[in-house]
């Protein structure tokens, strides 16, 4: 089949199938306007509801729709490297440095921050609660051989967890893979669901934790370690390597997020009276 004939053919089928999507969706508040960009993002900014809160404001101001792929940092950078997204919103400094160093990304802008927390069962068999040192807490968990859920998905959170274990001088996968150290290969939500069911410890970003609804026995046990700072960076694609056609629209979005209007929108997002993300871009001159 001629590939060029495929797109209109499929569109026709979609129309014929009776749901009249085009018309319905134009009136739907979440629907994309005429022009849109694809944002590959870490899951936390989407699952916590942040993007659903700020994107309609941007779309109303500019007429640009934003299609969000919530994928986790590793996958989001991969998607962008394959030209399948117009920009990325991620939170793993090392992976970002590599992405930019490889010539894939340009102009990283930190647009928000919050922190990571170590959560675990209220019973706290490892006696890890109350401290402000993430590495000490991990050592205690390992010493107690208490169940720990790892994302294992190359997300930003997963990368930080691996760095913290390294700082603790422990290789939990080699030591206890499958016993108390459980690599679930899933997103933050899946990890929290697993930890909740297994009464296990895990590392979570605060945004996903606060918006998560199946906490069960889990509580925040360790927070406040400077190593647990969580920075969200927006990165544009390098047009020299990725001639994506929506570069100008993507730049507009990046500029808006860093602008006072975008930063105010981020700071205004709250759940149960708690602010989830702190705006952190420098105000433009």
């Amino acid at each position, binding site marked *: 089949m001629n590939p060029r004939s495929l797109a209109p053919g*499929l569109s026709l089928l979609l129309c014929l199938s009776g749901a009249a999507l085009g018309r319905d969706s134009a009136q*739907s508040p979440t629907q994309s306007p005429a022009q849109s960009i694809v944002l590959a993002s870490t899951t936390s900014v989407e699952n916590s509801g942040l993007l659903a809160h700020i994107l309609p404001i941007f779309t109303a101001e500019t007429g640009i729709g934003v299609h969000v792929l919530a994928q986790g940092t590793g996958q989001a950078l991969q998607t962008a490297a394959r030209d*399948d997204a117009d920009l990325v919103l991620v939170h793993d400094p090392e992976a970002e440095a590599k992405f930019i160093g490889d010539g894939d990304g340009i102009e990283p802008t930190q647009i928000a921050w919050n922190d990571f927390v170590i959560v675990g069962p209220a019973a706290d068999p490892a006696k890890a609660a109350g401290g402000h040192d993430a590495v000490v807490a991990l050592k205690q968990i390992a010493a107690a051989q208490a169940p720990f859920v790892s994302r294992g998905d190359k997300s930003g959170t997963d990368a930080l967890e691996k760095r913290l274990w390294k700082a603790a001088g422990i290789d939990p996968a080699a030591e206890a893979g499958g016993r108390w150290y459980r690599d679930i290969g899933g997103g933050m939500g899946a990890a929290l669901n697993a930890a909740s069911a297994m009464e296990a410890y895990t590392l979570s970003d605060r945004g996903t934790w606060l918006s998560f609804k199946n906490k069960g026995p889990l509580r925040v046990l360790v927070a406040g370690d400077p190593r647990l700072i969580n920075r969200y960076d927006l990165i544009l694609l390098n047009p020299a390597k990725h001639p994506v056609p929506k570069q100008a629209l993507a730049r507009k979005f990046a500029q808006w997020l860093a602008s006072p209007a975008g930063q105010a929108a981020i700071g205004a997002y709250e759940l149960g009276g708690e602010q989830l993300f702190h705006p952190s871009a420098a105000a433009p001159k």
Partner: protein
Amino acid sequence: MLDFGDSYDAATFAHIVALSLAISVSGTAIAALIGLPGGAALAICRFRGRRLLILFANALLGLPPVVVGLALYLLLSRSGPLGRLGLLFTPAAMALAQGSLATPIIVALVHRAVEEPWQVYGGALRADGAGRWRSILVLLAIARRSVVTAVLAGFGRTISEVGAVLIVGGNIAGYTRTMTTAIVLETSKGDLALALGLGFVLIGISIAVSAAAFVFERRP
């Protein structure tokens, strides 16, 4: 009445349901366009490699959706061979994925449904001077109950599928979020009650479509 919380106002929810149906119906239509004539042709035509094709269609009944999704992802990615179509992360890509999954089901089931009537009526059709296409149409009409079942089986595969549409659709809010991908999302957000509620709605829709087709086909 189920409460879908603030995540799903009426318009958003209606869009998710409409999109699920549109994609599944499109995917099933693609599969039926290939599978009805294809399955019947496998029963009545004699050519080299026919047995291999029949074996192939039956073997692909268990085609893993996640592998189909991945293969389509690589094909449709902007850096892939069909990238310039810009189909990745669109509803069209999802319909294509589901069509790929439903096609072997319809081909295999239609082939079986038409085999017997062809043995019974084949001689008469040939004596009548019927061409291949006319024979196919007549046989599909004779076996229509089994053919409807085949198409419904294809539809069942598409409406309930999540692995492939998640990969090629991206679960984009308001654009490629279907019932199944919304259930995955809500589960990951820990909102198990909402996920289960959406699941019941999905089951209801699936049953309603199948029942409607059944009643339609059985009417006098």
